[in-house]
């Protein structure tokens, strides 16, 4: 399946979960300083481990950067 990650298409194995996507990018579900929105809604940290993904999902994976 293909999801959109931070605006770019990304191919994932069918059945992949959010935790798989995080792993691909070097993060675990315990990672501090990251946040995830799925199709415009915040995914609570407690739900990261079990969150399923579907073809066409839009994922925003955000990290802490210098600011403000």
């Amino acid at each position, binding site marked *: 399946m293909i999801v959109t990650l931070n605006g770019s298409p990304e191919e994932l194995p069918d059945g992949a979960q959010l935790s798989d996507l995080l792993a691909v990018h070097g993060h675990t579900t315990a990672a*501090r300083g990251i*946040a995830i929105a799925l199709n415009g809604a915040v995914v609570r940290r407690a739900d990261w481990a079990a969150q399923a993904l579907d073809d066409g999902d839009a994922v925003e994976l*955000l*990290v*802490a950067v*210098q*600011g*403000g």
Partner: protein
Amino acid sequence: MDDPLLLAGETFSSRLILGTGGAPSLDALEASLSASGTEIVTVALRRLDPTARGSVLDVVDRLGCRVLPNTAGCFTARDAVLTAHLAREAFETDWIKLEVIGDDRTLLPDAVELLDATEQLVDAGFQVFAYTTDDPILGRRLADAGVAAVMPLGSPIGSGAGIRNPYNIAILRESVAVPVVLDAGIGTASDAALAMELGCDAVLLASAVTRAQVPARMAEAMRKAVEAGRLAHSAGRIPRRLYAEASTSFAGLPAL
């Protein structure tokens, strides 16, 4: 003088909050944060940049500072509220520096969206640190809405123009019971001291330090300036006069 800062139920000894934007490197940032003595540091959330090395969060954690995430870049209450919720997940904190701006040239806050977002976030249990104009009436509305701190700007973000309307800051300070943090516009140490002399409880600044030619030195300057301004505020300054007031008595002058 024991004079701790109370913010959102917590106690701090430093009255200087540092933004991290604009630092030339994480090493420079760490040196600056360290020299500033700050205990609270702002960070932002942005899309993962695979080329980035190191994390601002590691620096902040290493120094034992509290994270104050911001909603920089948001133009609407909706975006700001969503960003605040993301930040809560990312940093496991209810604290949020709420920025809802009206245009990208002045980065001035939009009163309407700001109040809307404030109400939503206070309802959702956030400790809202509201970046706002120097308008005392708007400040009072924010206080009434339950913010943890009202954070008026001295002048536009990153402008280094100091406090363009000190009268409004002083009136705003009198108008609310919550902490007032001067946020935005500080250019140099005397600006930070002035903010405190006007009665602000703390100062938040970023560019003045991170974009100075020698950031860590400016950070140390800001630390001392904030302390100086705080002390001066409570020491009871002399009145301003048009003419002189002799410091050496004329009495007892010899006949020479």
